[in-house]
């Protein structure tokens, strides 16, 4: 059988060996914790605590504001120090709740958990919504919305994105190895919401141990299959993943639900288990701290709100001066200029590199080599789109499928002339999306 995949893509150096064999270690925060009110797609949450309040671990400190939004929970006990704008990984200043950690980790009285069998569909979705779960792969879209499409009976597949195609990231890999039962349980919870759905655990074939383990654990589950995917970036991109596992292709105007699919990432599915089965809100996430500048690359279980500085210190600090620090993976992460930012629900990694490819390589003239066309998973012509974007030719940009770009970065990666193709296309897309919103 041909290996499951999509057309295009690249094979960058994956750097996963640095941290893949390091078991997840819990980090206890020492300094203040910062909770940006906007760490998801949609309306920023509304604070429900005020300066000077004492809060406990697991206490809700901000309420969802509107339908597309998510609540936020305190991950330590302590005192609310301030509610003020703080810098986040994107470089923006975002209104945040700052909590001074008292080091006691005093927990709230956890609510009684109803047995799973007695929960109705609405109750389950409400638990997921109230737990503040959002897409933890990076997008941060509130998960309960994904799980409540208009016609739930039309959902055929619930896909767990275990691809982890970004280089250097090993957090999903460790979770799969260390907590596979929770992953499968979370998938079962999701499946119980859709009567006709089958579950797919989609893993890239560079993780044979995960595939074997998950296969073993699901051999008696008739509704769940484990699928091995070809190792290639961006295999974990939602649309490419749906195509690889089900053969269904959707364009940028459609949602996975239109193809009868719901896609969630490993950490998100485990958060669903924690919320519905154990009654715990989203308070932790796994962060890979890695890169050739880090003394001891590791996978951490981090309380959301923990400062990045503390993560670097926990990983032994820098063994060499980093030149570039990236929040997330090297293909789609954010370059950051200051480590004084908090871990959020969507922080998958902190990557510290001693070498920056981008500033070392000067862009030169395009030689029309066509490599960008060959690797583009969206099957557009990045070279032309970048041309249109640079000349601000909106009409030609849209007409030549500019909006179909998923910003995966393959074209910039592969370009021999080192042109920042993704960057200019991305900027143009942002402008177009902003315009559409206005209308």
């Amino acid at each position, binding site marked *: 059988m041909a290996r499951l995949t999509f057309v295009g893509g690249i094979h960058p150096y994956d750097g996963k060996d640095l941290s893949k064999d390091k078991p997840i270690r819990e980090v206890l925060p020492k300094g203040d914790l910062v909770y940006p009110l906007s760490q998801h797609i949609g309306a920023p949450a509304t604070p429900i605590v005020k300066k000077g309040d004492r809060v406990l671990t697991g206490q809700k400190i901000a309420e969802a504001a509107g339908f597309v939004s998510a609540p936020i929970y305190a991950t330590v006990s302590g005192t609310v120090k301030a509610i003020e704008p703080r810098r986040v990984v994107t470089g923006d200043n975002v209104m945040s709740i700052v909590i001074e950690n008292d080091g006691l980790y005093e927990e709230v009285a956890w609510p009684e958990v109803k047995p799973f069998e007695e929960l109705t569909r609405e109750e389950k979705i409400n638990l997921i919504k109230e737990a503040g779960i959002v897409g933890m792969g990076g997008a941060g879209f509130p998960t309960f919305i994904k799980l409540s499409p208009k016609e739930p009976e039309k959902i055929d597949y619930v896909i767990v994105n275990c691809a982890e195609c970004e280089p250097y990231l090993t957090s999903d890999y460790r979770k799969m190895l260390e907590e596979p039962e929770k992953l499968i349980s979370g998938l079962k919870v999701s499946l119980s919401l859709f009567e006709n759905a089958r579950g797919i655990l989609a893993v890239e074939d560079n993780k044979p141990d995960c595939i074997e383990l998950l296969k073993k654990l699901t051999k008696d589950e008739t509704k769940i299959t484990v699928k091995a995917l070809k190792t290639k970036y961006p295999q974990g991109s939602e649309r490419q993943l749906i195509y690889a596992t089900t053969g269904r292709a959707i364009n940028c105007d459609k949602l996975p639900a239109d193809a009868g699919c719901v896609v969630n990432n490993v950490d998100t599915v485990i958060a669903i288990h924690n919320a519905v089965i154990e009654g715990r809100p989203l308070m932790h996430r796994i962060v890979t701290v890695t890169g050739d500048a880090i003394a001891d690359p590791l996978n951490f279980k981090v309380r959301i709100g923990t400062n990045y500085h503390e993560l670097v210190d926990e990983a032994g600090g820098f063994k060499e001066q980093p030149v*570039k620090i990236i929040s997330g993976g090297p293909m789609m992460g954010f370059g950051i200029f200051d480590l004084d930012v908090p871990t959020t629900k969507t922080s998958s990694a902190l990557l510290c590199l001693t070498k920056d490819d981008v500033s070392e390589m000067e862009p030169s003239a395009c030689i029309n080599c066509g490599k960008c066309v060959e690797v583009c998973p969206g099957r*557009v012509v990045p070279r032309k789109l970048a041309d249109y974007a640079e000349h601000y030719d909106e009409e030609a940009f849209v007409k030549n499928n500019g909006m179909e770009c998923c910003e995966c970065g*393959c074209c910039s990666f592969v370009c021999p002339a080192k042109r920042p193709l993704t960057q200019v296309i991305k900027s143009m897309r942002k402008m177009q999306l902003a315009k559409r919103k206005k209308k």
Partner: protein
Amino acid sequence: MSDLMKVSSNPHIRSKVTTSSIMLAVVIALLPATGFGIYNFGLDALILILVTVASAVLTEYLYEKIMHKPVTIGDFSAVVTGLLLALNLPSTAPWWIGVIGGVFAILVVKMLFGGLGQNFMNPALGARCFLLISYTSIMCNFQTDTYTGATPLAALKAGENVNILDMVVGRTAGTIGETSMIAIVIGACFLILLGVIDLRIPGSYIVSFVIFITLFGGHGFDSAFISAHLAGGGLMLGAFFMATDYVTRPVTKKGQYVYGIFLGILTGIFRLFGPSAEGVSYAIIIGNLIVPLFEKVTLPKAFGRGGEKA
């Protein structure tokens, strides 16, 4: 951590392949054909190659100096142009033909249109066609001490028998770099293995050319006639090294097939029905001119847009 960090938009890593590494690979791939040309035609060929390459590179350097532009000779693209042009000259041509050709290729065809990536026509072929029209007798003089007969294609056109083995190895009259099919194919394989070129254009070019001469050549499926056409003249050099020139071929996959087929048919027409025995150069530069059209009609369907227009 007082030192400043580098910040940029994603992605933060880049592949190691650069424009100069690609151009250098092309130069290396041309070495077997170049070496065989020098072996076959002697010192004259070596001098002509050096003069042509040097004048191409020097033209680019001087133009950029005079125009106060960044000097780009380090990307080896001028070397590729000069070398390809030299391989398309007869070894009997005087040294100044190489100079005129090198200057014309770089100055007129490449730099005046905006430099690397902006030329609408392959510079080496543009210069060759310019020389062919301006200095026809020099460009068509293939008589050397070793080879006193006509080129294999001219002989074939006149209805004479040709020795196919000689043509495959390259022991025939012709331009410096086109005679040895083996040397060219070795270089082409090197580029294909490196992923610099693929078989889409050369494959569709050669296959459509074979089909065309089978149908219209008046010999039917005559393997001797077909092999003579494949091994003789500039078809191999053109198909693998000039039709695949990045700048002047379509960037879309489907467009590349259409382009290859177009070149095959055009070459067939020129060779069978034209007054000259050869037609590869003209076919490719005419193809170059139609590339924007090929690209427009073969714009790929975006992922998930199966069939229907957006």
